[in-house]
């Protein structure tokens, strides 16, 4: 019994609370990235390898707009819009010709896009990371730590964007189009829905969500050209764990994995904490290959 009591005493409760907050904040950002990814996959069977690069470009555009106008919110909106337009253009030029070919071609093309975009960013902005200043600098006291309100704001904003998007899917006219196309592409076409444009639109929305999360996340870490790959990897894990093409599952998986990683970082370095999400992935693949947060398939 002594050992058990000792174990409970040795748990750092204050750190647990702090890491729970951190986990939820990064989880919400990750959910924002992953929901774009899972949406694009669900509707057109495209795994968007370049999603992380859209995230990264969003952050860079945010840096530039913030530097010229000084307004964080303007940066957020302009970055989302510009990346949405870029995403639509990329979809029309590279993915549309591949419609009807083996879906593996699309992962190759988006991989090529990510290569080009990442190296463009490196070439244009250089290897050193840029900083986005937080729009709100006030803190509140959490144990011995001054916890920034901005982080709470990120979580709330991400939740609002995802929630708004969910409502749009549920009740908006074009949202119904998107759901119809996801369910049955051919039937939707027959009912007069312009399926190719729905695809383009969804790609643009996903890109905008990635860009928005890039700008929101920018103040927490620096903005540099390699941030895309780290995030797309995490988002891939989330999408597989949450069940491909499943929006609610991705959100749940994003928060779950981020929480686990935050807790793990109490005891190990952040670089090693990544292994926790890998372990979750392996266990998911072993026992529930269709995803943790989906109903058991019949």
């Amino acid at each position, binding site marked *: 019994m002594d050992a058990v009591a000792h174990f409970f005493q040795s748990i750092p409760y204050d750190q647990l609370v702090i890491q729970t907050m951190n986990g939820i904040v990064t989880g919400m950002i990750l959910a924002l990235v992953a929901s774009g990814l899972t949406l694009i*996959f669900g509707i057109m*069977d495209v*795994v968007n390898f370049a999603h992380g690069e859209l995230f990264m470009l969003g952050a860079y555009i945010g840096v530039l707009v913030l530097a010229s106008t000084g307004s964080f919110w303007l940066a957020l909106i302009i970055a989302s819009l510009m990346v949405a337009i870029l995403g639509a253009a990329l979809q029309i030029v*590279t993915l549309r*010709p*591949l419609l009807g*070919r083996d*879906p*593996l*071609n699309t*992962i*190759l*093309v988006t*991989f*090529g*896009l990510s*290569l*080009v975009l*990442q*190296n*463009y960013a*490196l*070439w244009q902005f250089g290897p050193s990371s840029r900083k986005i200043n937080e729009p709100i600098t006030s803190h509140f006291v959490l144990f011995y730590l001054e916890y920034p309100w901005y982080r709470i704001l990120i979580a709330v904003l991400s939740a609002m964007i995802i929630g708004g998007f969910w409502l749009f899917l549920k009740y908006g006219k074009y949202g119904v189009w998107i759901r119809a196309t996801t369910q049955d592409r051919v039937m939707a076409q027959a009912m007069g829905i312009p399926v190719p444009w729905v695809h383009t639109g969804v790609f643009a929305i996903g890109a905008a969500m990635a860009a928005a999360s890039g700008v929101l996340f920018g103040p927490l870490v620096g903005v540099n050209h390699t941030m895309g*790959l780290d995030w797309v*990897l995490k988002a*891939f*894990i989330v999408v*597989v764990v949450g069940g*491909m093409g499943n929006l609610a599952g991705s959100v749940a998986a994003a928060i779950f994995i981020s929480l686990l990683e935050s807790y793990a970082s109490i005891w190990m*370095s952040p*670089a*090693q904490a*990544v*292994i926790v999400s*890998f372990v979750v*992935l*392996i266990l998911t*693949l*072993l026992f529930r*290959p269709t995803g943790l947060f989906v109903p058991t398939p019949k």
Partner: protein
Amino acid sequence: MTIAPINKPMPLNRAGLSHNAVFWIGFCAVMALLIVAPLVLPEFWRRFLTEVLIWGLLAMSSDLLIGYTGMISFGHSAFFGLGMYGAAAALLLVSPPNLWLAIGFGLAGAAGAALFVAYFSTRLRDIYFAITTLIFSQIFYVIIFTWTPVTGGENGLIFTRPHFTIPFLYDVRFTTSSVHWFVLAVVAASYLILRRVTRSPFGMVLQSIRENEARTRAIGYPVERYKIVSVMLSGLFAGLAGVLYAIQNEFAAPDFVYFLISGDTVIFNVMGGIGTLVGPIVGAGFFQLLRELMSRLFGDQFPYLIPLGLIFIVMIIFLPQGLLGFARRWLNR
């Protein structure tokens, strides 16, 4: 194996030579050129050619998955890197360093990684397979990168090149030309083995998995087992490429376990032509040549991956058979 392959007589081409004869004539001609190459090329291009062969072997190994089994691996850097670190372990731990031990250790390392990846990833199909191989290769990267006491972390490991030995008979120091010949011999042998494998009944099953997995399973083949074996086989040859790279460059670094190497491997395949085995080597040569050309023309800092990435995208859309497939179609016209 329950079904014997259909033994059709080889179709004849216009000149009246069988395909087989044409193949062997072509093979010998290319081999002769590559054997003579180090004698006439300057030092830089000699090394360049050797490296192209090594990248070609890596690409060829991944072609077994992409072109024949129909699974795109974005994780070949793990096998390549484990091959490298395996060779490094043998060369650093055993003295005097032994070439064959290095190859053995490298293959064992790659086989371990491949078994791990194969066991988990083959539960998933298509895109899911691609993603999980990528994620698994990152696991190995993180482990190698952070386990500094053993792997040297960011700095990697440095060792000296072993002698070329035939046990009890022959022992000689490697020169840049003899490294080239050794690499050439290994790559050529690997090519012939892989060619044989893809034409064997086993290879036919792999291709039928590519064409129609559900039907292959319905006929009664244990598809998962075939997939695991093909990933293992592919991983072994990728590991062999890693060993060769380690021997040529006398170091092992975590950069070579990183995703970028896997990405390059896929690019080599698409550029050269998937499902051809030779194509990926051509693709590797094409890629490295363009890269070298661009850095000579525009300076070292030039982001060569931007134009190469654009070429890659254009090729997927308009030239999905790759250079070799295109050339073949053009020749047959």
